[in-house]
């Protein structure tokens, strides 16, 4: 028998292993015992070394009720609340929306520790079936309440053929060092039109992990937007796969990072069939001593001719100590495709600032206007008025907090 080389396990790893064993996820526990959490030597975690960054893992979350954290309300939205992984009493759903719960485990298996942990620990999954044109925005409000806890939650959404829906998921919690591990599986049916937004608004003391898996059917149209504006350590993983021809998706995201934070958006898009298009636009703003990370990989399978994919990362540095990192990758196995990527990083343009100030707009307000302008490309496509107000409010809140 080969003697596995003994690694030194951190307190966080020890706790995780015990929690996974307790949940019967022996193989995941075993992997962490042998390999530990991913370090920078693991390519997909190169910029987010979990072994170093995840210092402690609190006890597993107990069922709690929603009394503690103030909810974020979106005017006119249909709101579903999940607290510590469990769906709270749901109000009656709008026509075309069927709400249910099932056993956890919504993501397809993949070689990723955050996915493994979610599959092992999510107590249940909220299942949504969407049919027809849903005018009301659906708001899934996920919360970590009570004392610091490790909580996993899962959502599975099926959008039927030709249906239309806008879904926003927000992540909030009590002001504790929670570790959240959240998953969403979203299948977009033939010709369906879906907007899916996830916003981390957890306490600074918290850690936020999320994995969103998208299966995109024929002729579907998907827009996604992932925003980090909460936890000091966050990573949102976006795994998308085009499985039907004629579909288009816009993948967008926004890292709002301030002093002491590390936020990571990692995207993996697979154009698996011919004639699909995607646009990836990710913006990162960093101030203080902080780190913003974007990793984007586009894989074009051998049969996926006529794929058109363009990926862009734009960074805005508001301080000298901030770091904005970007790692775009294209893996192309088909020969008749148009793919490209680019990234830019800069500070606020001094001439733009001067122009605004010379008209009487004070510096702080001028900076805010320019930052909003920088983000417009990502936020403006969200047409719902109430939603757009909430998203702009989140950005403004972040900007004001730094002053």
């Amino acid at each position, binding site marked *: 028998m080969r003697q596995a080389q003994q690694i030194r396990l951190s307190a966080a790893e020890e706790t995780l292993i015990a929690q996974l064993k307790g949940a019967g996820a022996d193989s995941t526990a075993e992997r962490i015992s042998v390999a530990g959490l991913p370090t920078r030597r693991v390519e997909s975690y190169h910029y987010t070394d979990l072994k170093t960054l995840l210092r402690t893992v609190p006890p597993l979350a107990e069922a709690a009720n929603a009394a503690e954290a103030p909810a974020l309300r979106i005017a006119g939205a249909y709101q579903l609340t999940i607290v510590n992984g469990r769906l709270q009493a749901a109000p009656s759903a709008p026509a075309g929306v069927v709400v249910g719960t099932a056993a956890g485990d919504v993501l397809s298996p993949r070689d990723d520790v955050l996915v493994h942990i979610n599959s092992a620990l999510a107590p249940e999954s909220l299942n949504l079936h969407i049919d027809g044109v849903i005018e009301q925005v659906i708001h899934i409000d996920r919360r970590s309440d009570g004392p610091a806890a490790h909580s996993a939650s899962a959502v599975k959404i099926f959008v039927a053929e030709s249906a239309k829906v806008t879904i926003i998921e927000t992540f909030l919690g009590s002001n504790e060092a929670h570790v959240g591990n959240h998953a969403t599986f979203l299948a977009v049916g033939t010709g369906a039109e879906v907007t899916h937004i996830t916003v981390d608004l957890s306490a600074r003391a918290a850690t936020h992990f999320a994995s969103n898996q998208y299966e995109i059917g024929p002729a579907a149209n998907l827009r996604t937007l992932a925003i980090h504006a909460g936890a000091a350590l966050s990573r949102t993983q976006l795994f998308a796969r085009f499985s039907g021809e004629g579909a288009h998706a816009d993948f967008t995201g926004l890292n709002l990072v301030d002093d002491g934070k590390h936020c990571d958006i990692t995207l993996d898009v697979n154009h698996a069939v011919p004639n699909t298009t995607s646009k990836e636009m990710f913006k990162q703003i960093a101030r203080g001593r902080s780190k913003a990370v974007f990793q984007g990989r586009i894989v074009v399978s051998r049969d996926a001719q006529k794929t058109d994919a363009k990926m862009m990362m734009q960074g805005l540095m508001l301080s000298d100590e901030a770091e904005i990192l970007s790692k775009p990758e294209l893996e192309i196995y088909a020969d008749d495709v148009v793919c490209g990527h680019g990234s830019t990083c800069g500070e606020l343009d*001094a001439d733009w600032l*001067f122009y605004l100030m*010379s*008209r009487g*707009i004070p*510096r702080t307000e001028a900076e805010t206007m*320019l930052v*909003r*302008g920088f983000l417009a490309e990502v936020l403006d496509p969200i047409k719902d008025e109430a939603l757009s107000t909430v998203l702009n409010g989140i950005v403004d809140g972040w900007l004001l907090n730094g002053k």
Partner: protein
Amino acid sequence: MTTPILEIRNLHARIEDREILKGVNLVIPAGEVHAVMGRNGSGKSTLSYVLAGKEDYEITEGEVLIDGEDLLAMEPAERAAAGVFLAFQYPIEIPGVATMTFLKAALNAQRKARGEGELSTPDFMRAVRQAGSDLNIDSEMLKRPLNVGFSGGEKKRAEVLQMALLQPKMCILDETDSGLDIDALQVVSRGVNALRNAGRSMLVITHYQRLLNHIVPDVVHVFSDGRIVESGDKDLALQLEAKGYADFDNAAA
């Protein structure tokens, strides 16, 4: 005697190690329009930037007063609220900032700084529409991001629109005539003349006497190598047009 709107005394300014303004003296009493003419690179735009408060310059000597107040001690936004307006020689494009949002923010920021209330949206819209139609500016243009995709002449007209809206006390126009077609020159000049009044002064930088047929100045200054070397009435501009700057190169050092 009443306080002049603008008073510049022995102003020296440098950028990096290069001195560009070398002792500018200029007094503009209320209600007067002064023109400044001078060779390319003589420092005219530098003077306008220094007055508006651009950071790149180091003031090494001299003082500037607006209405008797120390202009150089003010932040750019405070200067604007105090009544300084610079119509840029090269107005820049700012993508992502909607023109109307910008105009409203500027107007209300200035009002607030002066202790006046915010303008209501209908009043604001009316003011913009009025200023726009006076300057033949298509309202569709104002729906675009700030200056984005505007032609050279449209940008210049948009600067004058801002000026009409903000009603500054000290208007500095840096080659507002360059890039304007013949009709636009008339429209813009009419717009500028409409703003002339007893309480407002103007500093009009130009290369062409033609503009001064429309906006008739009270005083014309010749700018050379970082200072004013000659001043006269409007006929000085005609003289310059005929003879060029050579006569003034070594004048009044």
